[in-house]
């Protein structure tokens, strides 16, 4: 593996390798010394063309725990906003001595273009590109889901996948890079994936995806305690989608697709095959009262804080695997 651009590129073995490595990385953060010498002398650049403090800090923490040098390049207010091209920016970073570029970009495909170009030899990690993918978010979600799924079955998570797990992804699938990355990865790991959204927020051609599609969240939640999902992932509703363009009002969205107190109660009543409660995930930041009620946001079933700490572990794993890759050095 030379770059991480899309979860669609990950084989089952590669995905497990990242998740298993992330488990070891998580163990490191419980040690007295939370730092590893693995990437000493390496330089990781966080190149952010779009604000995302959470993702940037997570990558920064991951790189620092691996003893890499970290440079943050925010394209806002820099020469980039004065019309400097991606090519020139990246070549500058290469000249400074970067080994890996973690890139968040507003344009779908920007990371893939960078990896395919001859502008740089750096390892490229896609930290979210437009409405395309956000692979490390999907990996941290998978790490979270696998913890819960293996614990319910009394297993060590290492080496296991999500075979048989039912996961619902609810919300704006059309514009969500998180959803795309999750769908491909969850399928690779053997989970059953259901998408729940108004038809306006589902891409044309979704019927060919290896998922079940529901227009109704209530239908997707099923009836009877055995029928429910093992996990439900609530996507953030972007403010610009409201106001009549994709659905009539925020209130109507909440009524039909929100994780309300009533639906939370139904979820609480669900029990998985091993008697476990469903997990609630959200990539954050949550819109309380829109896609998720305050009670659901604060529920013990909600994994949102675990997701954040798993984000650091997964990003450590990805940086380790990419930057120590022999492929890269013999290339």
């Amino acid at each position: 593996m030379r770059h991480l651009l899309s979860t669609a590129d990950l084989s089952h073995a590669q995905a497990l390798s990242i998740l298993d490595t992330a488990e070891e990385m998580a163990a490191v953060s419980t040690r007295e010394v939370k730092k590893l010498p693995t990437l000493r002398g390496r330089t990781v650049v966080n190149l952010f063309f779009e604000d995302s403090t959470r993702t940037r800090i997570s990558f920064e923490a991951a790189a620092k725990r691996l003893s890499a040098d970290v440079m943050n390049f925010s394209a806002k207010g820099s020469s980039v906003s004065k019309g400097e091209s991606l090519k020139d920016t990246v070549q500058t970073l290469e000249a400074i001595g970067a080994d890996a570029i973690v890139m968040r970009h507003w344009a779908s495909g920007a990371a893939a273009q960078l990896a395919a170009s001859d502008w740089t030899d750096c390892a490229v990690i896609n930290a979210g590109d437009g409405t395309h993918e956000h692979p490390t978010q999907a990996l941290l979600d998978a790490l979270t889901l696998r913890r819960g799924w293996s614990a319910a079955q009394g297993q060590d998570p290492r080496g296991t996948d999500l075979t048989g797990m039912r996961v619902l992804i609810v919300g704006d699938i059309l514009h969500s890079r998180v959803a795309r990355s999750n769908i491909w990865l969850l399928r690779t790991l053997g989970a059953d994936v259901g998408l729940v959204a108004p038809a306006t927020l589902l891409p044309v051609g979704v019927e060919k995806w290896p998922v079940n599609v529901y227009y109704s969240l209530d239908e997707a939640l099923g009836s009877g305690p055995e029928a429910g999902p093992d996990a439900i992932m609530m996507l953030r509703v972007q403010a610009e989608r409201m106001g009549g363009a994709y659905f009539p009002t925020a209130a109507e969205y909440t009524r039909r697709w929100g994780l309300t107190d009533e639906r939370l109660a139904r979820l609480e009543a669900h029990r998985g095959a091993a008697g476990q409660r469903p997990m609630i995930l959200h990539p954050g930041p949550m819109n309380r009262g829109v896609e998720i009620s305050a009670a659901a946001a604060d529920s013990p079933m909600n994994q949102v804080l675990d997701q954040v700490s798993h984000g650091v572990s997964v990003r450590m794993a990805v940086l380790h695997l990419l930057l120590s890759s022999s492929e890269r050095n013999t290339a």
Partner: protein
Amino acid sequence: MTRSPETSHVMSASDMDRALTRIAHEIVESHRGVEGLLLLGIPRRGTILARRLGERLARIDPAFDPEQAIGSLDITLYRDDLRAHGARTPEPTKIPGAGIDGATVVLVDDVLYSGRTVRAALDALQALGRPAVVRLAVLVDRGHRELPIRSDHVGKNLPTSRDERVSVLLDEVDRVPRSEEAVVIQRGRASQAGER
């Protein structure tokens, strides 16, 4: 199993058994008992050898509790030669409940070569706590050290050249029957620092 004619056996299964038994006795003798003793195997073969040593220690002194005194220490993330060898998924590091502080830690590995693995293991130990003493037990010492490191307990000293490869074949990893476990040397293959 078929092997190339370049391969020769240097230890048989029974040689290995005897060597481990001897090392177990040496450990008890040098530590004067088993109290405060912690065996940490370096994955993957070191972990298996540590377990086998532990069985022998428990036979020598029933006060040795394998549950509490055997663990594993993965050193992947502490290596200084990843660039040359490429990343692999780390194996689990398992430290028994009491931790390593104040313990006599015996690091267990299959082959001692350049010493870089042991150096990485010492770094990894430092991140975990502060043992009272650290010792090293290996099944084979094949020489060619690149660092000032020596082993305290050696199953067999094996003079080799750098273009040879030493392999310890174990039931659990290499799927050979227990009775056909062996240490073998393969010739004619350039080996790199850090390799066995």
